[in-house]
């Protein structure tokens, strides 16, 4: 199953750090997300992009996870040579992850 079928997501940027939220449409799927989408798995998924650590925070009250990815934005929005300089599309990229 693709992540897109049970969850949605948005990316934010602060300096050279990106955060990706992962929100279960149904509270019932939160445990599935929590078990399947670990910080290690996200780091491996974005291996081409994220140079630093990935930290996962859990928000059971809203059935969501928040991944903070350090060194993900090529030096930040103004220095980055990437077309997606904010990393805005990373939230769409993670929707394709198999769980």
């Amino acid at each position, binding site marked *: 199953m693709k992540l*897109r079928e049970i969850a*949605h*997501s*948005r990316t*934010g*940027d*602060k*300096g*050279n*750090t990106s*955060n990706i*939220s992962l*929100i279960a*449409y149904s509270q019932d799927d939160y445990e599935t997300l929590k078990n399947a989408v670990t910080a290690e798995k996200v780091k491996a*998924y*974005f*291996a*081409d*992009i994220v140079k630093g650590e990935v*930290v996962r*925070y859990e*928000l059971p*009250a*809203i059935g*969501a996870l*928040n991944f*903070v990815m350090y060194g993900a934005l*090529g*030096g*930040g*929005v*103004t*220095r980055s*040579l*990437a*077309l*997606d300089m904010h990393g805005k*599309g*990373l939230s769409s*990229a993670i929707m*394709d992850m198999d769980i």
Partner: protein
Amino acid sequence: MKTIRIGGGAGYAGDRIEPAVELAQKGDIQYLVFECLAERTIAIGQKQKAADPTKGFNELLADRMHAVLPTCIEKGIKIITNMGSANPLYAGKLVAEIARSLGAKKLKIAIVSGDDVLHMAMDNDVKLDEIGKPISQSNKQIISANAYMGAEAMVQALNNGADIVIAGRVSDPSLFLAPMMYEFGWQPDNWEMLGKGTIIGHLLECGGQITGGYYADPGFKDVPGLARLGFPIAEVDEQGNATITKVAGSGGNVTVDTCKEQMLYEIHQPDRYLTPDVVADFSHVTFTQAGPDRVEVRGGNGFERTNTLKVSVGYQDGFIGEGEISYAGPGAVARGKLALEIVKERFALCGFEPEEVRYDLIGVNSLHGDTLSQSSQPYEVRARVAARCATKAQAAKVGNEVETLYTNGPAGGGGATKSVKEILAMDSTLISRDLATATVDYLEI
């Protein structure tokens, strides 16, 4: 119980103006807040101000004021904004001029300054987080240093009868927290209420992002009427409970899911969201759909604020040179790859060594690299070379080397473009809270 209605009139510097007009006219709001400063916006403003001392504030300030002031004056809606950017004083003067031209008889405009800590940062030789060195050892030309100020000076302005509050760098949620503190008498050490108010501010600060903007994904997350997206309203009570809604009949939607996405936008540790006012705790917030386009927010909290303020530091960091060219038809990707290999080899032949170079095939791997892009196989491809260089002349070489593929490269290359842009980079640091003091001045009509 007393409640107030606050409208979020902008989510960034260049945001649409029409939804803010709709909020003023039909939103039954008492406050219209415009959040218009991204991390780098004020550094750009500082450069504009250096060239012309009367500039450096939000470029849409006049347009926004012409659009909303007549209604706000008529209905007594107070305006709070960080559109002052690098020059709140001249922003205030312009607003006063516009108000006079509209025939305003009595209006008090508060100018909040004190966030510009460039001299202090230079004198104290602050250490920059990303660069990892003090300014003096960073080898960078610093352009701006602005501290994120809290809500208190804006509350003071409202207490003194301000109709319009114009600030520079204040934290985004503080713009929304200020009217709550003023209306409900929340004291600056009432951490729980400040935490709740900060969360409500964070939900509103990106304008249309909570009403369905930046949310739609057809077939999965459908949003009605996006073309005429309405901006958000928070109905807040004195207990810090809120309902997020929007003008009836406007486009977009307010749902539990749009609220969840916005709550987690640009935050890191959810139970420690640092602002100048409070350490807000988002971790127990819940959302309940109370009706169409009405979502109740409950459960926020806050803890004692830290003794430091975050400072955004803008500095010059060389230039980015860029060149692009397209290939089409059978073999397009192979010819695009060949084009990039040629440019790479020519850089080496010329001894050209930029600080960093990137080679992309747009339509193939330009956003997120090879691994995530494996399934892609388009009809056309656009080859792109981008490099960060110390000098403008070096940066210009990047686009030129791509352009010469017209007569020195693979078959059928078309539509070459090139550009050079100056890099205004951002870093941050923390300073002791007592090193920056907000001041309030008033202009009266």
